[in-house]
């Protein structure tokens, strides 16, 4: 090795002491209190699970605002007042009169106005909530003829089927507390609601239910058809397993079984995230659990249409099975999970919120959140401690968003029985301050009046010989969802070419864009529209 340049390289690229990881590690600084977020998710047994966050723009400034579940306490709305590339700041607002018993929420467009709406998951009555001007919200169950009863709802996903003007909704439910013998073996069924001309009517029951804690409409085989993946908590089901439901507009929903190639998997499933890690057009799935995190990839030997998965978490260094720092070596408890490129190097990273259920002595008490960062070889390396997120909290739901429009993804984690954490991504830390990481592009789709965000669309971003894809989805994680710009790290690429597979299957032309910009891709325009936040002072 030629050692001539070591001195100046070391001073120039001054990275902290995590020499095994060659790429930038973002310095995440917790500043929830300073930013005006003082919020706790709390409650008894029914709120051991849940604790979701939803991020969305509710006032038209394209900055992500927040709704945080409160459990027994009130849910809260936080309107984003952050300055561009500056300190994070939020203004707390009332949310539906201090609505309690909220488990989580997902942003969604339920009608054709421009305001974002919400699906609010609760212990008891779920709500469809209609958004209005200036972050105003109102319950709209009657408007949408919506009623899912009074269950314990812990999962949600949605997709637009065919030409429907409203999305099909799926609700995942947990333990039926009133059933004989509860809680063990008494999981509620899940529910599917398809739109009618006036709203939602009949509920289709997806039975059996196995105490789902996350669900996601997903095009698992790149067929253009979105089926429903559900992860279930083995703590309470009997003879249950993970599930994949075939969802076709023309047929009754049907669970894939062994005859279809589906392999039984029994875990304490708590969260789902998907990303196409190997670029084959068929997503991999991260499934959080107690102990190992699973990372599933369609088996190489699977026949077409056969959902036969292989776990690759160990091969890729992503098991996250116990705390990566501290003295506690008992198994971890994973909740929300999400792929995102937090260092903008063009390689997906994997975040996992961790935290003991309550006081389960068989599992780690100190259980810091994970930040498994792509290592450039297709695997992951834990960098949570280096990034600054290894804290003694009980993480549940989370969103990874660029709250101050600086091109770097920040992190909001809802913690059980403790204040929510808000980490500002300051970039890479040097011995003189913070410096930029890789380039980025942030993309918003404009799909028209119906399904305006283009849920179901696939965005492909090409830089050189590398193509990254992300699918616009509603669902997954742990009772947490977001609606806003879709963020891609570009590494050293200063420009990118983007194509969109719209929800109806049509492909866009190429949109050529310069890095480090926010762009809106309107399917009726041939050019990308650039968006700029309020100029930094």
């Amino acid at each position, binding site marked *: 090795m030629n050692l001539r340049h070591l001195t100046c390289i070391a001073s120039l690229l001054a990275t902290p002491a995590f020499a095994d990881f*060659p790429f930038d590690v973002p310095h995440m600084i917790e500043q929830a209190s300073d930013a005006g977020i003082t919020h706790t998710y709390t409650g008894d047994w029914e709120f051991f699970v849940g604790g979701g966050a939803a991020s969305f723009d509710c006032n038209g400034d394209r900055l992500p605002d927040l709704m945080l579940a409160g459990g027994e306490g009130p849910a809260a709305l936080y309107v984003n007042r952050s300055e561009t590339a500056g300190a994070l700041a939020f203004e707390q607002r009332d949310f539906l009169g201090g609505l309690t018993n909220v488990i989580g929420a997902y942003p969604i467009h339920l009608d054709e106005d421009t305001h974002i709406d919400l699906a609010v998951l609760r212990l008891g009555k779920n709500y469809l909530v209609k958004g209005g001007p200036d972050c105003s919200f109102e319950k709209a169950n009657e408007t949408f003829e919506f009623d899912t009863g009074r269950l314990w709802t812990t999962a949600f996903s949605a997709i637009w089927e065919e030409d429907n003007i409203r999305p099909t909704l799926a609700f995942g439910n947990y333990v039926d507390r009133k059933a004989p013998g509860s809680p063990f073996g008494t999981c509620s069924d899940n529910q599917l609601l398809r739109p009618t001309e006036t709203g939602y009517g009949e509920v289709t029951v997806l039975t059996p239910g196995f105490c789902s804690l996350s669900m996601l409409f997903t095009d698992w085989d790149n067929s253009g058809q979105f089926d429903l993946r559900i992860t279930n908590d083995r703590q309470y089901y009997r003879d249950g397993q993970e599930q994949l439901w075939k969802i076709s507009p023309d047929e009754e929903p049907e669970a894939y079984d062994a005859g279809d190639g589906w392999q039984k998997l029994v875990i304490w499933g708590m969260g789902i995230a998907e990303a196409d890690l190997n670029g084959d057009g068929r997503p991999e799935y991260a499934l959080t659990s107690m102990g190992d995190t699973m990372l599933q990839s369609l088996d190489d030997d699977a026949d077409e249409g056969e959902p036969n998965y292989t776990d690759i978490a160990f091969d890729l260094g992503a098991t996250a099975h116990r705390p990566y720092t501290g003295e506690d070596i008992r198994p971890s408890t994973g909740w929300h999970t999400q792929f995102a490129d937090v260092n903008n190097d063009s390689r997906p990273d994997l975040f996992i919120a961790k935290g003991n259920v309550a006081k389960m002595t068989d599992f780690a008490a100190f259980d810091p959140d994970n930040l498994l960062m792509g290592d450039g070889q297709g695997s992951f390396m834990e960098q949570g401690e280096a990034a600054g997120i290894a804290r003694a909290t009980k993480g549940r739901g989370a969103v990874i968003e660029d709250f101050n429009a600086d091109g770097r993804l920040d992190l909001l984690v809802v913690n059980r029985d403790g204040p929510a954490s808000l980490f500002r991504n300051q970039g890479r830390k040097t011995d003189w301050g913070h410096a930029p990481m890789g380039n980025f592009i942030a993309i918003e789709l404009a799909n028209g009046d119906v399904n305006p965000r283009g849920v179901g669309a696939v965005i492909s971003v090409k830089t050189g010989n590398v193509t990254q894809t992300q699918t616009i989805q509603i669902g997954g994680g742990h009772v947490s969802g977001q609606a806003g710009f879709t963020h891609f790290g570009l590494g050293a690429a200063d420009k990118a070419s983007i194509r969109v597979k719209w929800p109806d299957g049509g492909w866009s032309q190429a949109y050529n864009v*310069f890095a480090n910009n926010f762009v809106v891709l309107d399917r009726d325009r041939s050019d990308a529209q650039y968006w700029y936040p*309020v100029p930094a002072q």
Partner: protein
Amino acid sequence: MTLMKPLTFALVVFAGTASAQDVVWAEKTPALGQADLPVGVLSPEALMQLRALGEDLFAATFTPLDGAGRPRSTQAGLPTKTKRPLKNDFARTSGPDAGACGSCHNLPILGGAGDFVTNVFASEGFANHDFETTDGEFSLERGTNHLFGAGLIELLAREMTEDLHRLRDDAISAARDMNAPQTVVLETKGVGFGMITALPDGLLDLSKIEGVDADLVIRPFTQKGVVPSLRQFAVNAMNQHHGMQASERFGTRWTGESDFDEDGYSAEMSAGDISALVAWQAGLPVPTQARDLPQDWIDAATRGKDTFAEMGCVSCHRPALPLRSLAFADPGPFDTAGTLSTHDVETPAIYDLAGLEWAAELPRDDQGRVLVPLWGDLKRHEISDGEVDALGNELFGQGFVDRTQFITAELWGVGSTAPYGHRNDMPALDQVIRAHGGDARAARDAYVNSDQTTQLDIIAFLKSLRIETQ
């Protein structure tokens, strides 16, 4: 401040080769690795030292012992692996295609332009990186530009970008404050770049911008105008032409590998090496209008200069653009990840070009701004049309710029840098003038329709714009 490392060479064992001693006859470049990354305002002496190293690097013929060659890396600016190891150390088409920068940049002296034989073949370097033909479907054949005055060109571009961004920011703020669209004319230094309309929600209507990219960054370098800085160009060119890979883009931070091109050498070019190259190029003197000419040539050139303006040539080939500051920050403000930028360092180096001997000769306006006599506008224009299409000969665009649009060639030094045209295939100025179509069609027609004496006056003027060799 120490800019140069001691010129004493230790015994170094190179991975992948037999041991080699750093003796004076070793096939290595002594200047390589000698420059630390400079910081702060450089004294005239420090700048001179740094530029001397840069000149040595620019003139050096890089060898395998320096790390030249890229058997597993393509010519792409974005680090990209080859599909298979390159067969040869040199390839005239896809590169590496030169031992030294000076192999091509040598007309009339080091840092100058190049003859047709020095043409380069620009391609993305991704899927079809290893083309072995000059066929236009694989690459864009381009002549070698000169670099004299390049520091002032970059400074002008930076100031123009700052101006355009300020106009954009003001429009965005006003649109939000007034809740109404705001249309702003984009003009900087007297050069118009169309207009933008900011909408109250922060979206921009960019459909009426002219001659500049959608991000409103002036990219003054290459014939196409797609590179914003000498630093980015140096990093690109070092890889493409020599297989010398700069750590700031090809190092572990972006590629995860210390020897991305797999030639057995890591850290082939440090950030300090690139700074030295930038400093040398940025400090090259500006071309001038020759005064040591016969009187009849001077008289003809004087008439030609006036006619050049009357015919409208100066609508693009602006005689001069005003520059507010000669302080050249390196790294600069408008590079993005993969090229060091101002934001990547605690304190950038400042090369005060005003302290260089040639700068004292530059005229200033009544505001004290230097009038940079570039004979250009740093704007891209349509250069061909249906009838006059010789310069619209490329098959595809570059850097998102249409195939028939090119940045106005700065004419300073044009009398020293034949042949002409972006393919460098027109030996005479008369030819390249006649080849102007598109936005330049009216001025070109005026020239073509003028009498021979008038045409010769213009040629006399253009040939008086020279790179001084003394």
